[in-house]
């Protein structure tokens, strides 16, 4: 008989939900749109720098080795899309400034007229210091240093400027060294009377290699899709707290809850069928978004979602997240007095939990205090669980801490709801 009471209650909840077809469409559609929009927007941010072409205008007044090397070298670096203008008078500089200010280019680089000559002068001075008898007839020019000017699009972030400046400085140093060695070699040849050929390799002597720490041989790297799809799926799941709370408040305000409380059933008999129906909705919502991540996102030019190789772990982390989201809604619905209270608190608290949970900004870049707070957000537990399943191919046992935390959150929410309704 108890089972029949649960079954009829589940049937009632399902009918009430399905007969509000606009509401059901919104429950599914809004998170899907959210995931698509955010993933597309953040796709560029998550790309490696190598995949991003930064438009650069280079005004070359040097018209010599340094200017040529810069133009060729930064063009080959892969991260810049270079437009080189041969400088003859100040009008080219003027035009370049205007283009950068207008956003056509993000960076402007000006190689001054005597840049290569300055390096050559320094070579002569250095050799004359080391070998005072050599190059007696050669006189170094006055210019020993030149200044390469950079100007940026006004909306460029400071962190991006720093990154670009560091990349250009590294490249300038390498080019200067190359010119320096070549010039030095020519001077040495002149002193010794020999004709040496120096082959300076393009690759540096010390190189860096990034190794994956994941044992998963699939080698999935975090990208916009791998982060945003699970993160915003969780956000969508937790937004279900608003319809869950709304259903409880409607039941209460219309008197049905009072009638139910006069029946020979427990309060759990009222709450659990709601939980079951909304957990199923959350799981279907997650399934729809994951399928979109796998099949639709590649069509939109995004990487396809990789869900790892452990479907059981994926199910359990999704199930626990759905439980937590529904429980959160039940607690809000039991505590809030009105729809306005529930929808305001539900939406704002979900946004806050998402923000501190690493849905918008990865936890690793948060300040220390926020990282500590983040550990208390159920969305953080969900995101961590999905990350572990998707990127590290974690087993159910490995994501058990997250599953248990989400389940405990659900139990606490249900107990809070029951306690508040009984004491209220």
């Amino acid at each position: 008989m108890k089972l029949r009471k649960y079954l009829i209650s589940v049937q009632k909840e399902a009918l009430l939900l399905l007969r509000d077809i606009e509401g059901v469409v919104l429950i599914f559609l809004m998170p899907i749109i959210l995931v698509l929009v955010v993933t597309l927007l953040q796709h560029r941010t998550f790309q490696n720098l190598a995949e991003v072409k930064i438009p650069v205008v280079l005004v070359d007044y040097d018209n010599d080795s340094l200017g040529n090397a810069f133009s060729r070298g930064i063009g080959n670096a892969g991260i810049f899309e270079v437009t080189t203008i041969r400088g003859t008078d100040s009008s080219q500089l003027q035009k370049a400034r205007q283009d950068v200010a207008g956003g056509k280019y993000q960076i402007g680089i000006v190689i001054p007229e005597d840049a290569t000559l300055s390096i050559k002068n320094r070579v002569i001075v250095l050799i004359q210091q080391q070998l005072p008898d050599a190059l007696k007839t050669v006189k170094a020019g006055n210019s020993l240093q030149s200044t390469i000017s950079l100007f940026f699009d006004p909306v460029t972030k400071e962190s991006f400027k720093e990154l670009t400046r560091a990349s250009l400085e590294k490249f300038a140093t390498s080019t200067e060294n190359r010119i320096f060695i070549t010039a030095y070699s020519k001077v040495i040849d002149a002193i010794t009377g020999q004709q040496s050929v120096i082959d300076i390799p393009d690759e540096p002597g010390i190189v860096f290699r990034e190794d994956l720490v994941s044992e998963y041989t699939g080698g999935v790297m975090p990208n916009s899709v791998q982060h945003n799809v699970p993160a915003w799926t969780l956000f969508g799941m937790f937004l279900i707290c608003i319809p869950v709370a709304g259903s409880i408040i409607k039941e209460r305000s219309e008197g049905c809850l009072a009638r139910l409380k006069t029946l020979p059933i427990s309060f759990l008999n009222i709450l659990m069928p709601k939980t079951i129906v909304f957990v199923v909705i959350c799981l279907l919502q997650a399934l729809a978004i994951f399928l979109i991540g796998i099949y639709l996102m590649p069509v939109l030019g995004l990487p396809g979602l990789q869900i790892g190789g452990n479907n059981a772990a994926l199910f359990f982390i999704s199930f626990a997240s759905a439980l937590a989201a529904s429980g959160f809604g039940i607690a809000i619905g039991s505590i809030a007095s009105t729809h306005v209270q529930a929808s305001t608190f539900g939406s704002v608290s979900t946004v806050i939990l998402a923000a501190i949970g690493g849905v918008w900004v990865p936890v690793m870049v948060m300040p220390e205090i926020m990282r500590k707070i983040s550990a208390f957000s159920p969305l953080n537990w969900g995101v961590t669980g999905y990350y572990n399943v998707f990127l590290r191919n974690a087993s159910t046992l490995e994501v058990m801490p997250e599953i248990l935390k989400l389940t405990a959150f659900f139990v606490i929410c249900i107990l809070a709801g029951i306690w508040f309704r009984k004491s209220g």
Partner: protein
Amino acid sequence: MKSSERLKSNTFTSTINRGQHLKGDNLIDIRNLVKVYKGRSTPAVDDLSLQIGDGEIFGILGPNGAGKTTIISILCNLIHPTSGRISIDGLSLATDKRKIKQLTGVVFQDIALYDRLTAFENLIYFGTLYGIHRQELEDRINNLLMRLGLDKFRNEKVGTFSGGMKRRINLLAGLLHNPRLLFLDEPAVGIDVQSRNVIIEFLQELNASGTTIIYTSHMMEEAQKLCTRVAVIDYGKVIAVATPDELISNNPDCRSLEDVFLKLTGRSLRDEF
């Protein structure tokens, strides 16, 4: 025509056939009931004692804020009393809640139904929660819908119903399990004369079949016709308990229950907040 004579002519007793309870035994015994709401200094119910016999249609009458809804809410287990003792059919309200809930039906003033479910779906839902088996429940629902003229609308959503139709379904939802005791809070308020008439007749049939009815209303004429006994309460206290006829005869200057009511509770407005 006396209430008992009207009941004899009724044919509905075959649907709800529980005439074994004898009128006169105390079905409800309320002793020294007190309820003080949080933040209020004056009690909503103030040391109230009342006995209600089995088989009665007992009216609880009082102006706004007198404590009627509080008493009904306590009897229905919706709120806890501050102190006092209540027993229903010999069972303690404090310890035998589940058994008492199975004995009682409640019909609130609010239409406590799901608008997006049909009349049948609503009744099946509430009936199943009372623990009635499906076939028995369906038969009972069909009989009751027919009795109250709603069988044609069984598969229509309640949200499309008129006020009178909703009230009738609301009433049925509270008595699907054939309760021994039925609490009614303003069961016929705000509806058309025909619907009210059907409801009143139906309540009399129910009572004739053995259901004790506790009834609150502002409609004195209706209470006078329907109730076997009434209690007039004010400021949480019982100020009179008797049959309507006794109350009128004890107050020679009054010609109706409404006159008695006004005499006992005064003519000043009782606005609730």
